[in-house]
């Protein structure tokens, strides 16, 4: 309880600190919105030019970017500071965190308030509302619960991927380079049915870099395309659980990597 109170107080202070630079604050909200809008524009352009993508109609496809973007917005808000680890390592801040009583991971997450998450979440919520209103599905309590679980699972899976990169950066600071690429890949390939891709590429985006579990598989299960994803139905249906397990695994990796952290100066 005390830890939650401290985390809340630091978050409030961080928020006030962000307000210190008003223009930067507003621009950061805009950046979140613009990033999400650019994903929407890309998806919309592809949907309008290539109808019937992968055997899905456009209202079904829309559920994929909506789920992914909402998961991404929550990730940015709650666990997104994993992006920042590379810079913290370079500036030697991890060394400072190590000698403080608070866990290093929590320190990293409380480093600053992610203002851009406000824009991210606003646009993502708008897109989700649009996707749900255009959907012909019967939104029963079961479907809604699964969608909520999918969004949380997607958030945790994205967090797991970035935590894994951050863990690698603790040992090899240059590994931070991968996080930008990861974000780009998630934005570009996470927003439409992956069955338009060749089987080998789809397999890579499922088992190599598991972004298919973030939104594609849950949306496929919800819209009745769960048997055409190229993986067993049960695996696609368990996507939210995959997110949870991946995050737990990533946190273990983080703990192990932190134990082997030597600092940039040796």
């Amino acid at each position, binding site marked *: 309880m005390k830890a939650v109170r401290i985390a809340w107080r630091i978050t409030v202070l961080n928020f006030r600190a962000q307000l210190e630079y008003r223009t930067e604050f507003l621009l950061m909200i805009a950046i979140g919105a613009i990033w999400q809008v*650019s994903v929407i524009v890309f998806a919309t*352009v592809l949907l309008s*030019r290539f109808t019937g993508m992968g055997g899905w109609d456009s209202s079904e496809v829309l559920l994929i970017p909506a789920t992914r973007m909402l998961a991404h917005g929550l990730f940015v808000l709650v666990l997104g500071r994993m992006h920042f680890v590379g810079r913290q390592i370079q500036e030697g801040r991890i060394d400072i965190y190590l000698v403080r009583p608070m866990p290093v991971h929590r320190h990293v997450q409380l480093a600053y308030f992610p203002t851009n998450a406000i824009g991210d979440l606003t646009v993502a919520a708008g897109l989700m509302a649009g996707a749900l209103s255009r959907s012909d599905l019967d939104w029963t309590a079961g479907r809604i619960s699964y969608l909520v679980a999918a969004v949380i699972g997607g958030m945790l899976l994205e967090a797991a991927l970035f935590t894994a990169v951050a863990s690698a950066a603790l040992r090899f600071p240059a*590994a931070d380079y991968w996080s930008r690429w990861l974000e780009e890949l998630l934005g570009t390939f996470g927003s439409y049915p992956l069955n*338009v891709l060749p089987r080998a*590429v789809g397999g890579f985006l499922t088992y190599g870099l598991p972004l298919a579990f973030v939104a594609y598989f849950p949306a496929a299960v919800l819209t009745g395309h769960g048997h055409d994803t190229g993986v067993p139905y049960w695996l696609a249906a368990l996507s939210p659980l995959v997110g949870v397990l991946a995050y737990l695994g990533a946190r273990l990796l983080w703990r192990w990597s932190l134990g082997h952290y030597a600092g940039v100066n040796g």
Partner: protein
Amino acid sequence: MAVLHAWRTARVTPLGELHTPPRITAVLLRLTVQVVLVASLWHGLYANTGTTAGLDVDQAVTYAVLAVLASRLRELDQYAGRDTVLQHMHFGTIVYWYLRPLPPQRYHALRALGEQLYGFVWALAGYGVCLAAGVVQPPVSAAVAGVFALSLVLGQLVLYFVMLVLDQLCFWTVRNNAAMLILIFAQNLLSGVYAPLWFFPDWFLTMSGFLPFQATLSVPLSLYIGRIPLSDAGGQLAIQAVWVVLLALFTRFLWRRAARRVISQGG
């Protein structure tokens, strides 16, 4: 002597990259995976479509792959070298730029030139491999290749000046993170990195016509794949040149104003 100084300045970032083998491996892997993914995506999208927005599958794939390769031209991790204007403003070391015999504007331009030449080697090697593997189509004629090369150079100049404006913004705002991120998104979206601009609605094309971003990538790549015919190339090149001149004058003005804002410790 000036040439020697220029060479030493320009090679700083490439040398830094060459001394970090994991980064080179990462770039190689990233480029390979990105090219395969992008080519697969566009082939998949065109599986049930003939020609759309004036582009057939070969043109679309060539455009998308060349866009990936072109993005290598300026994508070095300058932050790791602690030599971005943002970091210098943050740590107060920007003052050293004004104490050296080399003027800051020339230093900035030489660093960028070195980076772009280094990135060009990567892009050229990638292009050679993609061409040999049949992933991209060659230009239809020598004239198209020549016009594309000229347009690409002009596009890179426009891109340099746009990025420079963002760096110069730091002299007034201290921070430029958000503006830089917005610019990167705008650049990717409005220059056709995400998808060729020809797929976008007319209002989007009209809007981007008033901005410098399409001059950086969309114009050279459209010339390469033949979506902009050679007969229209003169006009497009002229627009690119106008952007270069306008942005060069604007950034020159900003350098002068920025110099007045730099103070060393103690005033």
